[in-house]
């Protein structure tokens, strides 16, 4: 059992858990992820690591309440336990001194992006951060990003805060030179940013979050095509070259189980209503 030592609401339906997992905390690195199994009948959900504290023995990860499992996890409170947390999985980010780095984090992935920014900064890089969100209600950790980066830009889909969309990056790249770009966020955003950086030849690393089951190389559902070759998101990734990856296929594969996910989510909502409030069967410590 893995105890939730703190639960923080980042924005509307966006939640951060800090969980007791000393083994993982001792080894975790930026770029890696964990697989969470919330309860006995639950799924295995991959979530990117947002922070770790080897002394405290904790690891944290954030999620957007969108499907059944994440909605259900949103009902877990401090002191509740998750059945299993496995990690750290995937390869750590290749963090080194490269010069000027552009870090673009979008929606829930802003949380793990901060870990990258911190690591990039510690390696001696100049870091420019872009925080992308749907609208101003979904922006979080802006202050933390400002404290860690040399420069922070904010952009939203609807323009309710900061720039409207990411097109401003095209202008930015015309005037500023970057040596490296890291993008964590929705696939469409990662695709768009990769397209923007490509003409400038800026090496661009994206973090994929495909459907996974085991997360350690067994099932192959996370397969992606990179430079025409089949790669597994879990053991070859999760970071890949944004200029080489087949984003369209990735988007298609992420939607493989959409009808089932919708059904599961709908049943959960109904169940919650009938039961009068949340009865998610969470594990008490």
């Amino acid at each position: 059992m893995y105890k939730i030592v703190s639960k923080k609401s980042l924005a509307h339906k966006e939640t951060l858990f800090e969980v007791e997992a000393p083994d993982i905390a001792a080894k975790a690195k930026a770029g890696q992820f964990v697989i969470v199994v919330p309860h006995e009948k639950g799924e295995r959900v991959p979530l990117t690591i947002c922070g770790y504290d080897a002394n405290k023995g904790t690891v944290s990860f954030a999620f957007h309440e969108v499907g059944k499992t994440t909605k259900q996890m949103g009902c877990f409170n401090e002191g509740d336990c998750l059945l299993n947390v496995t990690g750290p999985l995937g390869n750590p980010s290749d963090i080194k001194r490269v010069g000027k780095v552009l870090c673009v984090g979008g929606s829930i992935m802003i949380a793990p992006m901060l870990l990258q920014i911190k690591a990039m900064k510690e390696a001696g890089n100049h870091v420019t951060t872009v925080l992308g969100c749907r609208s101003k209600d979904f922006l979080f950790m802006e202050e933390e990003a400002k404290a860690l980066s040399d420069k922070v830009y904010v952009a939203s889909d609807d323009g309710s805060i900061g720039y409207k969309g990411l097109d401003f990056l095209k202008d930015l790249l015309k005037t500023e030179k970057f040596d490296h770009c890291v993008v964590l966020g929705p696939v469409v955003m990662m695709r768009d940013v990769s397209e923007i950086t490509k003409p400038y030849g800026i090496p661009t690393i994206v973090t994929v979050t495909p459907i996974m089951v085991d997360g350690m190389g067994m099932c192959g559902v996370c397969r992606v095509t990179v430079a025409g070759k089949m790669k597994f998101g879990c053991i070859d990734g999760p970071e890949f070259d944004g200029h080489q990856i087949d984003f369209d296929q990735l988007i298609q594969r992420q939607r493989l189980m959409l009808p089932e996910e919708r059904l599961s989510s709908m049943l959960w909502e109904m169940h919650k209503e009938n039961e009068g409030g949340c009865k998610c069967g969470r594990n008490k410590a």
Partner: protein
Amino acid sequence: MAETKPKPKPKIKKEAMEMPKQEPEVRVKNFNEVALGYSEEQALEEATRCLQCVKPQCVAGCPVEVPIPEFIKCIKEKKYAEGIAAIKSKNALPAVCGRVCPQEEQCQVKCVLGKIGEPVSIGRLERYLADWEREHGIQIPEKAKPTGGKVAVVGAGPAGLTAAADLIKLGHEVTMFEALHLPGGVLIYGIPEFRLPKEIVRKEVDYIEKLGVDLRLGNLVGRINTIPELMKSGYDAVFIGSGAGLPMFMGIPGENLGGIYSANEFLIRVNLMKGYNFPEYDTPLRLGKHVVVIGGGNVAMDCARCSMRLGAEVCLLYRRSRDELPARHEEIENAEEEGLICKFLAAPLKFIGNEKGWVKAMECQCMELGPPDASGRRRPIPIKGSEFTMEVDTVIIAIGQTPNPIIQRTTEGLLADPRRGTITVDENGKTSLDGVYAGGDVATGAATVISAMGMGKKAAKAMHKYLMNKK
């Protein structure tokens, strides 16, 4: 005078006692166990067929050397507790082996009765005793005095469980690291419920834990601790039984379309995550009406039989002929009884998708058999101009697995076969690193549960010797 006359020997029945099974039309609609097990009467009758050979050939055929005539004699005398103790002196997982071992190629093929009729049903009798014990309470055997030796076992599958059981009984302290959230390895994620109920796997693992093995779940060695780190942190020896977890794909166009599963993904969703109970269980599984399973091994049969239980019409596509099918004969028979259609001598060339990126058809090519290849089986040769298209909405690729590379990638100095991905070992399971042993599929490539157990056993013996010499 009748008393002095030697009693005429009872005539031995040539036919083995049939195992009661669920009827095909019933079982294809549920995930309950197909074979129901012997009753006491049936077990007793089958046990009397054993000739109690002085030099039993069956034992020689068993990779873990179970004292077969001895346990069968115990059944005959209704000494069931003694019988199961005899099995467990060599085999920590009898309820599993009694169900999934290919006895027809191992112990039973050597049985002398096989020359005049059917061999003794050794597997079924083993299962009878194991099931008897589970109902009557599992006994924990005495362990040797603590040796002070500390061992790490990587992977709680058949090889690891066997090695762990043997090492702890010899007095060593054993910690077992399992990467998944449930123990059992292929027994829990691979072999379906209807062939091996998960409750039975759980009980077998319980037994190993009761012996005193410390089981750590969700602990991926290579990511949390590497092998050298384990050795440094106080383990005197390590056994790697991490299995053959990496699925093979065909490398043909369209393989990343929706509806194309690796056998591993399909089986993990169905077995480990209980996807057949979706949405009660959260892991979904989308299966169309027309499923094609590519491959011909036991894993392919398991995928096919699961799919039929989930309501699909299933066709098995195999590039050789029926004679070369690597699956157990019994499994093929069971699957065909349940409605499996086999298409031999054909292989896919490419997958064709619909506008939503979901597979809708498969272009295939017919094969003919040429001379035998390196595996000893006749090589399939494509027939030019024989292409045909098959409509299909789900494809399961069951063409094999290779070892998971995480440990090999994170352990410096550990010799591995670059082509097959297997860890290189000697006949006792010793790797290129001092104190590090390996066994099961990670060393052999995908094989059977019992061969993995046999290697776990051999390695445990060698590790015991290593640990005792080290002191």
